[in-house]
């Protein structure tokens, strides 16, 4: 079995300033101070809301056809 390649050291995207930050147990962004978990939760909620709206729009358009 050949030797493995270098496994990437993980980073996490701060949804506040869009910079990647180290996964080192710190709760706030090292660059902008945003609460990383809270910003991630807000981002996911926004994405879910956008998906719901897009689905509703598609359904409405299909109904018109």
């Amino acid at each position, binding site marked *: 079995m050949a030797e493995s390649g270098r496994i990437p050291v993980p980073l*996490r995207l701060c949804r506040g300033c869009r*910079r990647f930050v180290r996964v080192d147990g710190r709760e706030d962004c090292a660059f902008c101070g945003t609460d990383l978990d809270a910003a991630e939760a807000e981002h996911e909620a926004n994405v879910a809301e956008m998906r719901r709206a897009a689905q509703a729009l598609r359904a409405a358009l299909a109904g018109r056809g």
Partner: protein
Amino acid sequence: MDARRADALPVRYAGLDDIVNRVPVSVVWEITLACDLACSFCGSRAGHRRRDELSTAEALDLVDQIAELGARDVGLIGGEAYLRKDWLDIIAAIRAAGMRCDLQSGGRNLSEERVAAAAAAGLCGVGISLDGLGATHDKLRGLPGSYELALAALRRVRAHGLSAAVNSQINACTLPQLRELMDVIIEAGATNWQLAITTAMGNAADHPEILLQPWQMLEVMPLLAELAVEGRERGLFLQPASNVGYYGPYESVIRNVLDPEIYFHGCNAGDTVMGIEADGTIKSCPGLGSAYAGGNVRETRLREIWEKSEVIAFNRRRTVDDLWGFCRTCYYAETCMAGCTWTSHALMGRAGNNPMCHHRALEMDRQGLRERLVKVKDAPGRSFDHGEFEIVVEPVPARVPDRIAVHG
């Protein structure tokens, strides 16, 4: 990443499984050093054939060896690959072995007949080099009219139903023209645009005036982010080379391949990327110099070189302790490992300290400083050679206002 998204990615994108198993997903093969252009930044100083290029039989055997390692994509480069008489046989063999095959070309003599023959042989796509607009391209490529010839080749590729891409250098000459260039290549039908910063190797080491300065990353990255977003909306997929970066507020935007959480995770030379020179020399990345040659397939089987050469393994052996200068104590040191190995080696004489970095430029700027490269040693004049530069740290010059108010 779910299966549907993974299926949508280009085959040369490496996943975690590929890294773990060290699959050379993307193999870049210089099949000849013969070239019909005379580019002022050419890293390999192409022009004449290498003295001892592989024979047809050796090249076809090498195709089988590449396939045995699980490679998915073989990119043929030169020099100018179509100047090799058996280039169509090599393309056909790569396709018969189940791998994707692309051609990177300056396009000067990529005639209708050549494109048709390559398509018939199974070629999947062509990347045409376009470095700035009109006169800028012609000057950098060393041939008046080469810009129009390249554009014509790009349209020809598209007309034959092949995947059409463009490769561009980012340097002091091309940077101001990238926005307009994007309009041109979209109009010509390209769907992929690979951008790489001109590396200070080969002919480019002899022309420091065309190289970007580190502080210009403050201009490069926001521009690329803007172009990436606009390009995607217009059907052009921007692909930054691994010497473009790193981190800063635009990392997610420029490297977004269906997933905003993709980021630069260090040089992948020798892990998922392999470079081959026309005489059978194997390197862990096509751009690397001869010091990084792991062996030659005339003497050793490819698998043995790939799996056992310590030179090929340099990337896996690197630790933060091998870094120096700014990169040694950088916030991203463990992930980035000083970015593109050859960019730092070609500039600084050894790897591990890479001044061509956005995060670094931002940190310097925050302190009112910037870095400037000054050439202190010429390159000896060989293929893939380099000179040496020193970093001068200086205060950011006072910004000149656009208009000076005149009080009468």
